[in-house]
């Protein structure tokens, strides 16, 4: 069984992100959000890991209650989360208001690869398997 972290009515998961061109990793907590097509990480973290807009292959727009945020898409070599890893994973880098306590969003481009049995009341994942 896997336990999601519940905070402020949201569930968070740990994502392991690689530093650019280094055999080093850092962990960030992302909000599990099935309403987001893509996985988003605060540019403060991606900058720290050594990525920049020079690594981008597309510009992205995020439209939320606070207005439009412009960012960019990058491909990271490996993305690890919920005990699985996906190679050449696309993340959207956007400036997020870190005072809100959110470093990013785990979106559907990760979640769509898995079958999960989640108890949304308790945040417990009873089973998770990769869909091939």
């Amino acid at each position, binding site marked *: 069984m896997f336990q999601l972290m519940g905070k402020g009515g949201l569930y968070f998961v740990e994502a392991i992100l690689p530093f650019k061109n280094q055999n080093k990793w*850092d*962990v960030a907590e992302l909000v599990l959000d099935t309403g*987001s*097509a893509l996985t988003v990480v605060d540019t403060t973290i991606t900058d720290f890991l050594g990525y920049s807009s020079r690594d*981008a292959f*597309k*510009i992205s*727009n*995020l439209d939320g209650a606070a207005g439009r945020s412009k960012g960019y898409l990058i491909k990271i070599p490996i993305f690890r989360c919920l005990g699985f890893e996906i190679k050449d994973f696309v993340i959207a880098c956007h400036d997020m208001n870190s005072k809100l*306590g959110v470093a990013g969003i785990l979106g559907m481009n990760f979640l769509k690869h898995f079958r999960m049995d989640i108890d949304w009341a308790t945040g417990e994942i009873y089973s998770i398997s990769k869909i091939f």
Partner: protein
Amino acid sequence: MILFCVSMQSMARKLTWQEMKKKYPNQWVSLINIERGKDGMVKSGVVMAAGPDLKIVTQKLKKDNLPSEMFKYTGHIKYFWGFAKWGITDVPIDG
């Protein structure tokens, strides 16, 4: 610089998650030497940098060349909105 980092790490005391929340309320912390409980949650760790803004924390880490294994927020999530709409501009960034 390396000596400075080593001394910073050896001086730093391992704190429990409860102690971190008390010492650094509503702040981002960068942790190393993380210990987890049976539930997989962070039980304790050594705080390398802390601040109310994540940018301040990463700047501190870069400036002092400190290691980091995890970023964590000690406060409550104040407000968060669902992202209503996604748009990806279909133009290469360098194009």
